[in-house]
């Protein structure tokens, strides 16, 4: 039996093209992985096994007629704030348990058109904020997978699916990607329509992708955008700017790991210089905080009034605090964002990528989804950012390297990420996942 959970998406689609694999077989393999590990990891709000099997049969018929699509037969999970026609969009909120979507979200319709198989809805923190989802970290079940796209990251890390969709308003793609040891990519703001996706803070909300490698991310991104992107990476070593402000806030072991990772890149030929941000990091994070909470208040206050007890404590507190912000300061924050974005984008133009740790340390316990401050800056500015697994902490939890590019230069960032990925050591498989795969043979 083939093992596409160990290969790339491109290799898997090539096997389908050669008639060595079917979408139906891929779906069954994913369902088997879920059956084996879901009781421990709890990545899924809903698995649509019947729908996936039917879609796989139709997709196999296409292949038999010689029509093989870019994501042909690839099982995908989508975060449960994104509509899939015929399935509930629960968003971790009990009153929405029976809220069945009538239409696919734009990103879901696009994935289907590319031949992907929608396997189900992955767990999210409530409305993509900070009250933890039930999902566990595949590397250590007593640690958070991060959030808010908790299930998407964990499902990819557990080899249940090769590709998942999430969203990021502060750090909800890159942070779970780093904690779970997978690649997470948040392209430039507005890279793809958010239609059919529940808003948290609409001027900050980004769709994002999870996969096991930059190559897979690049293939999916290029297919979704209908762009040609070379997934093989640069031949010329990139120039990188290490943002030292974040190192002051990084836990000692993670800081040491990050500096060693940068040394590896430098040894491989990268041109590295260090620089401080041109604007106070605390001001940047406060601007993000004020914009996010005021937009959350605008999006949620009516529903909070109707269902106060159904809200998680963190989301409820944030909405209530956001309602109190004077409009003049909320608008002042938006004006400051313009200036922050201009200055940070100018800084990004001076190199191929900005570099910082994705997270301040390894995944903490289940009571939190972690610290968003290392990722939120790039949600505020709408600049593309990507997290690559860079190794394990002393206690065996993944850490991530974050690369940030100039706005609308997503392809260039992916090329830099592919170069870095070739230099960095590959992570092992999470122990409980490896044990499960061994049982499967």
């Amino acid at each position, binding site marked *: 039996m083939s093992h596409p959970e160990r290969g790339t998406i491109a290799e898997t689609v090539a096997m389908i093209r050669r008639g060595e694999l079917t979408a139906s077989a891929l779906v069954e393999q994913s369902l088997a992985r879920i059956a084996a590990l879901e009781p421990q990891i709890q990545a899924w709000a809903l698995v649509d096994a019947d729908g996936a099997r039917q879609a796989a049969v139709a997709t196999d018929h296409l292949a038999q007629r010689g029509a093989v699509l870019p994501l042909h037969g690839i099982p995908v999970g989508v975060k449960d704030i994104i509509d899939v026609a015929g399935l509930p969009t629960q968003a971790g909120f009990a009153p929405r348990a029976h809220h069945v979507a009538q239409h696919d979200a734009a990103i879901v319709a696009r994935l289907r058109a590319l031949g992907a198989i929608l396997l189900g809805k992955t767990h999210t923190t409530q409305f993509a904020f900070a009250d933890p989802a039930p999902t566990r970290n595949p590397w250590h079940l007593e640690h958070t997978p991060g959030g808010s796209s908790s299930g998407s990251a964990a499902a990819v890390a557990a080899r249940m699916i090769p590709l998942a969709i999430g969203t990021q308003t502060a750090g909800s793609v890159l942070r779970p990607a780093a904690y779970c040891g997978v690649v997470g990519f948040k392209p430039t703001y507005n890279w793809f329509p958010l239609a059919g996706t529940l808003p948290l803070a609409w001027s900050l909300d980004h769709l994002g992708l999870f996969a096991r490698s930059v190559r897979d991310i690049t293939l999916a991104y290029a297919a979704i955008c209908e762009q040609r992107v070379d997934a093989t990476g640069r031949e010329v070593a990139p120039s990188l700017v290490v943002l030292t402000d974040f190192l002051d806030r990084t836990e000692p072991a993670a800081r040491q790991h990050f500096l060693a990772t940068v040394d590896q890149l430098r040894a491989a030929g990268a041109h590295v210089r260090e620089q401080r941000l041109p604007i106070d990091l605390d001001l940047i994070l406060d601007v993000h*905080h004020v914009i996010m909470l005021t937009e959350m208040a605008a999006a949620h206050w009516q529903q909070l009034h109707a269902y106060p007890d159904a809200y998680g404590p963190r989301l409820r507190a944030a909405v*209530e*605090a956001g309602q109190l912000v004077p409009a003049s*300061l909320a608008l*002042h924050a938006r*004006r400051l964002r313009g*200036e922050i974005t201009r200055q940070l984008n100018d800084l990004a133009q001076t190199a191929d990528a900005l570099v910082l740790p994705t997270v301040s340390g390894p995944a903490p316990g289940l009571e939190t989804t972690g610290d968003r401050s290392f990722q939120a800056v790039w949600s505020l500015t709408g600049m593309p950012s990507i997290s690559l697994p860079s190794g394990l902490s002393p206690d065996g939890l993944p850490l991530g390297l974050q690369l940030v590019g100039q706005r609308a230069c997503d392809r260039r960032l992916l090329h830099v990420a592919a170069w870095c990925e070739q230099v960095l050591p590959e992570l092992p498989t999470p122990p409980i996942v490896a044990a499960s795969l061994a049982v499967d043979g």
Partner: protein
Amino acid sequence: MTPQWDQDWWEQWLRENAERLYGPARREAIADELARMAKALARLSAEQRDLAALPLDTTGVDG
């Protein structure tokens, strides 16, 4: 924006308005979030950038 609008001033202002809108029990339940917001508002209030030089945000992050 005036310099006396510091973190203590904002926290007091937020707490008073939270009590008026949500009652004393909720005000206490969200005290940490109010303190976090007071810190942010104080920093934004103290921001000394020339406002006239800042473009108006008319189209969101894409502007």
